[in-house]
């Protein structure tokens, strides 16, 4: 009976999750154009990547992006959750949660297209800079190599997402009332409460969102693909885009999969490390 209930799930993940994941790892050791039979070439794809400057550029970009993007994905959402949680009336809490959930109906492609426009040479950001007399600060943000990556990283201001807000809020809501009262009786101020009560009690939510954000930021393909396609030059190339270009545009599936496999190993190691380090702190 149990197996009957589990059968659909296991057939689906076997055929459409595990099979492609394993074939990606296998393909990484072959030379393959997607049509002719793959040819086994050992670790050649990996050594090729290590001597490819584009690969190292991509690795550096995703590292920087993760370092800045992950806190951006978490901290503003926590602040919003915290502010909502501290409102007096349940009704106001509900309304504000709804207010922050509603924008999720916008297709993700729309916000990318809008930021493409905001960053444009004649876009609103430059219009504002000119209006306040900072003409020397005007740039074509996505077309100049020294700014393009930063423009992508800081896209999406104010970086509040409905899912993260609700997860943090649920964590705050789960703090036992007695502990809140006890800490208030001890005369703990607002900051002390956040530091000693709320942060420790929401560590499970922080861990979850940390792992999901690292995976999300490092595998974000849509933003560089639609906004810059890695350019100008390789200034906004990321490993996932590099993999995509090699496989889809150049038909070098083996090389693309080798890049993907390395990225996966790094992300997996980071996720495990995170959970270890954070658990040790508990």
């Amino acid at each position, binding site marked *: 009976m149990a197996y009957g209930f589990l059968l659909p799930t296991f057939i689906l993940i076997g055929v459409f999750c595990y099979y492609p994941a394993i074939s990606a790892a296998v393909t990484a050791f072959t030379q393959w154009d997607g049509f002719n039979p793959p040819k086994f070439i050992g670790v050649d794809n990996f050594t090729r990547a290590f001597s490819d400057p584009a690969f190292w550029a991509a690795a550096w970009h995703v590292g920087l992006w993760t370092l800045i993007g992950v806190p951006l994905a978490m901290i503003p959402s926590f602040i919003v959750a915290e502010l909502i949680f501290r*409102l007096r009336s349940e009704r106001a809490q509900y309304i504000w949660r709804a207010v922050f959930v509603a924008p999720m109906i916008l*297709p993700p492609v729309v916000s990318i297209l809008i930021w493409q426009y905001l960053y444009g040479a004649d876009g609103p950001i430059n219009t504002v800079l000119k209006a306040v007399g900072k003409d020397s600060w005007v740039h074509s943000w996505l077309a100049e190599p020294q700014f393009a990556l930063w423009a992508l990283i800081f896209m999406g201001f104010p970086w509040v997402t409905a899912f993260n807000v609700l997860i943090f809020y649920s964590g705050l*809501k789960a703090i036992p009332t007695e502990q809140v009262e006890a800490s208030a009786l001890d005369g703990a101020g607002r900051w002390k409460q956040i530091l000693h009560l709320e942060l420790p009690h929401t560590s499970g939510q922080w861990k979850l969102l940390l792992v999901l954000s690292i995976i999300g930021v490092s595998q974000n393909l849509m933003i560089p693909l639609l906004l810059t396609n890695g350019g100008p030059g390789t200034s906004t190339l990321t490993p996932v885009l590099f993999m995509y270009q090699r496989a889809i545009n150049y038909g070098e599936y083996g090389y693309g999969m080798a890049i993907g496999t390395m990225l996966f190993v790094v992300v997996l190691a980071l996720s495990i490390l995170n959970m270890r380090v954070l658990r040790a702190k508990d």
Partner: protein
Amino acid sequence: MIMTVATVGNGAGSGSRSDAARSAEALANRRRRKIRSLSIPAQIVLLIVAVLGYIPAYFMLSNSLRDGAAIGASPFGLPTRPIWQNFAYAWEASRFAYPRTAFIVVISVLGIALTTLMAGYAFARFKFREKEALFYIVFGLLLIPGFITLIPLYVEITKLNLIGSSWGLILPYLAGGQALGTVVLRTAIESIPEELFEAAKLDGANDLWMFRYIAVPLAAPLVIALGLLNVVGLWGDYVLPALIMQGDLATVSVAITGFTPPIIAPSLNSYNIQLAAFTIASVPIGILVFVMMRYFVSGLSQSAIKL
């Protein structure tokens, strides 16, 4: 690394609690509220953040009714002379994609709900030897990022001759929804009081009955919340559909994105039509989210999902 769902006892949804417990909780809530008090400044900050967060929505709506010259003059201005023509062109160019996209999303989301409820029920209620090992096979998928499987999946779908078929998207979507759904619903079903199942068993109920009449109704708010997340995600999905469904077979977001070539400065006029097309595409999702808002906000907030 166990993901747990603890049901938070606070307010709506749990009608089975006694009045005494409820009034004690109301008292505690009142006390708690006395402790924290920064409502006005907090709401001002929230308002500022919310306004900033709504800028893309405003930009999309107002510029879907303007033309290129108007955007150039004042990007955030109101449409003083709305150009409804934009919507006519937008609808004309993208309406072909709606029936197919709706079919793909509805089948995928309902399928994910049913299969993850079944798997969640099996992991929560049955005892079998390989249970934990099998559970980690599902859980482990959360750690395999989607991009690694993107290309092999595309190759696999090509081999299965499903390029250009709705099922070429539905099957991977069904598979992709399994991990999070199964993990969350397992813990949700585990937290249903054992007495309910015991009582049903005394009346001679079998597992199919208990699944249908105990587990499904009680897990419903969470299933709906997860379902909404899936609807929003799949409706707006771009990368996989762009590979699998091209041209006349495009999904809504592929059809609209393909409107202009993805270069830095698309001609502003087609840009406005594109924004109008996205506005139209947001309408069905908007209606759904607003109708289901209560389930979404409470469903995700009442269960403390954590790692």
